[in-house]
């Protein structure tokens, strides 16, 4: 029981904030790792801390990447939003399709970002795609894939399920929220719609 009690004390919102910002002392981080049973209200505390440090008022539903969140807008739409405030549209469409993209296709271009010359990938086999936020130009993702590989939709969260499991079901829950709608966007592009 003592171990559990210690863990409970460590999983405070103050410590969570430091963990998120990378300033939590190692001993405390290790203490969190060693909790035998994790604090079950972590998700709620996490969202609260994230909301408090956000620079915009939209309600955070989940965090999906270092700079990216799915937020609920006033019109109940759920969109991906960057720390800087840039929005990427419906979270069911791969947010990378709303980024600026830089592609490195030559060894010289790859050498600018890979600092050991002996392990630079073969540009005949793969290209490197860097995805930037159009608002703040943060590098949000990198893919190193063969030419023609579909943009990787790394994570599609089942938001309704996580809120149900937390005992806070969302009022507008529907199976449609857990659908990949990326190709709706590419279909529009194929028709010449930007």
């Amino acid at each position, binding site marked *: 029981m003592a171990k559990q009690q210690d863990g409970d004390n460590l999983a405070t919102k103050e410590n969570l904030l430091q*963990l*998120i910002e*990378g300033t*939590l002392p190692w001993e405390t*981080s290790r203490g969190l790792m060693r909790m035998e049973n994790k604090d079950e209200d*972590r998700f709620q505390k996490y*969202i609260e801390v994230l909301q408090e440090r956000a620079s915009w008022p939209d309600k955070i539903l989940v*965090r999906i*990447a*270092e*700079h990216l969140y799915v937020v609920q807008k006033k019109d109940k739409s759920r969109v991906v939003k960057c720390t800087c405030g840039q929005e990427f549209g419906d979270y069911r469409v791969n947010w*990378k*399709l*709303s980024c*600026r993209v*830089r592609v490195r296709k030559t060894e010289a271009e790859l050498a*600018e*970002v890979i*600092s*050991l010359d*002996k*392990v*630079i*990938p*073969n540009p005949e*086999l*793969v290209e490197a*795609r*860097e995805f*930037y936020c*159009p608002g703040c*130009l*943060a*590098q*949000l*993702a*990198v*893919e*190193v*894939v*063969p*030419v*023609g*590989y*579909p943009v*990787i*939709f*790394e*994570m*599609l*969260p*089942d938001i309704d*399920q*996580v809120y149900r*499991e937390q005992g806070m079901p969302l009022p507008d829950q529907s199976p449609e929220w857990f659908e990949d709608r*990326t*190709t709706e966007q*590419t*279909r529009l592009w*194929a028709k010449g719609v930007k």
Partner: protein
Amino acid sequence: MEIKEFHKKYETLHERIEARNSITKESGHYWGIKKLTLRDQDPVKFDRFNSRLVAAVLGARETAKYVAASPAMTGMGELVFGLQTREGDVPAGSLGLVGHNSTMPIIVESFAKLGYDVSAGINEGDIWECNDPYYGAPHAADCFTFVPIIYKGQHVGWSGGVNHIGEVGGLIPGAVPTVAPNVFVEGFDFPVLRSGQNDELYPWWLNQWRRRTRAGDSNVLDCKMRLTGCLMMRNRILEVCEEFGADYVIQGMAEVMERERSTMEKRLRNWTMPGRYSFPLVQPVKYKGKLGLLFPEANKDWLLHFPLEATIGNGRVKYDFNGASHDDWHHYNMYLGSFRFGVNLAWYPVFIVGENMHTANIYLMEFDRPHGSVVNPSNPFVGTPSSAVMGCRTGQGLMMRVLTRALFSKGYLEETFAFEASDFNIYGMSGVFEDGTPWGMSNFSLVGAQCSAARAFMDGGISDASGQNPETDYGESEEWETTEPPLLNIIRGITKDACSHGKYRGGMGFTLAHIVNQPGPVFSANDGCAMNAEVTSHCCGSNGSYPGLGHASLFIRGTNMAELMAKGETPGTYEELQDWLKSGKLTAKEIIHCKGETVAHPLQHGDIFVILAHAPEGWGDPLDRTAQNIEADLDRDLISAGTAKKIYGAVATQNKEKWTVDLAAMEKTRQKLRKDREAASVPASEWWKAEREAVLNKRFHETVAPIYRDGLNNEKWGRKWRDFWALPETYSL
């Protein structure tokens, strides 16, 4: 119903296994056990019983390993023991090579499918072994031994052990042959077979190890080591039967399984974000021009596609490999055992907190592995030596990344953790001594201590992770040298600037370098299990970092290193070695630079063999890295000042070995780098249009095109690919 009643109801082992699977699936509980009766009746007794099981497996490993000769066993503990139920499940496993626990049930299932319980019987003193992936082993190097535990005539369970041997007798020497188009040249594979009776190994079996592999005596000792552990564990469990009764032991093991299954389910549900995660990887395999006139069907290169998609939800995980490359004549074909082995290497560090290592989490998984693909071969003759490697890369490497993202999203940042047991880098070698004795071996040093990827709150670790041991350990360099007599280790340390950069930097790559010393008339070495640097470790980086860097090696021939060493000079680091080459201090007639696995390269006295091991991904945008972290890397000589400026935009100066970053200059440089990003990029819609043209016009490298050809043959992945590029239905490759 108690387990013993099920045992009466289903007569053969195979029937019981089938019944266990269907009852567990339908009820959602192991063997339908919803209430832990023994535990509830007397929790203290149950706890004592469980501790006895755990002590039996731990004791077996800690003692038996000293029977072996290889430093991989004695020093690094590259072995694992597991107590198994009658149907093969592991309620208690030892530490060590833990992922292998999850393949033990498959091997017992193979025993059952072969009908051995009926034809040969389950007899006291019988010894069974297996290392063939077709029957459940991850690859031929992973040799399994299991013996029945029989108490007063009643079969109570199995005592199993496995270790990774040093040489399997394949076309390419070592533990993991790197050219093996088919099973005929991949080494000494054997199905489930009886290798001894009355607790003694058959003489022919020991002779077989000596004749069919290049490290016969070492393999014989490994074999005896596994048997020793199994017998020790069996005897401890017989004592437990004496104290608790056989029925209690059988029922108790089942209750432990259900306890652990439900605990894992709860943790998975509570800690992870439900959702769909996609983390593919591509793996180059290069055979073209390497096999001469042999195996014309394998005279080509591949870029194998492993498109893992994992869906987490309702306390379960579904693994989906639709779209994977088809099986073919190379060494990366993978059966279920390999994948399950890798998967548990990912699950254990995250979800196991108690004292039991176990296989109960297998019942929380579903697998979709298309038949005829590289992850579920339909051709039983295709090669498999690197199936375990790919099991790690997909089951562990990709799954750790899935879990890391799922934990991060749920707020458990402290548990985010990923590394690459897949880049074992078990390099192989063989030769002939001056007296004419042939020999062969592998060196596992880099298996024992890999670097880890950056986490959501800190840099990746250096030599801090191992899929094989709870404690990282390269083993003693001098001990390894005794197993590889012609190789003298001259460099063993981190490789400067070898990392994936990010807000948090990935773990640093590692260099091993050897000089060849008096090798005898014949000697060759090959780099194996090496993540190929022609691509990155996986297709995705993490949150804006680049994916992990692959692996390279150098074979430096005809050097003057022996003369330099005679004067007492050796390079201390890879950087110094490079400086010496550039300045002409170190001369060489030829330098062969390889990426990933290599064929065996003949080497002579004075040649140098360098391994540049991989470095996993960072986390986040490099331009978010703090000045303090950049200074720390410079102070520790992990990165150069040039890299600090180019990648991080940090202008740093050194004063008495301490580096200081000019904050104002850094901010200015970073603003410029962001402007560069804007200038060099286009909106995704424009990029998509241009890339689509390449797809429509089929402008693919010949090694890449088969990925899409196979993908189109798969209904699910093919549909996804066609839709993404808005391709006409008539499109084909």
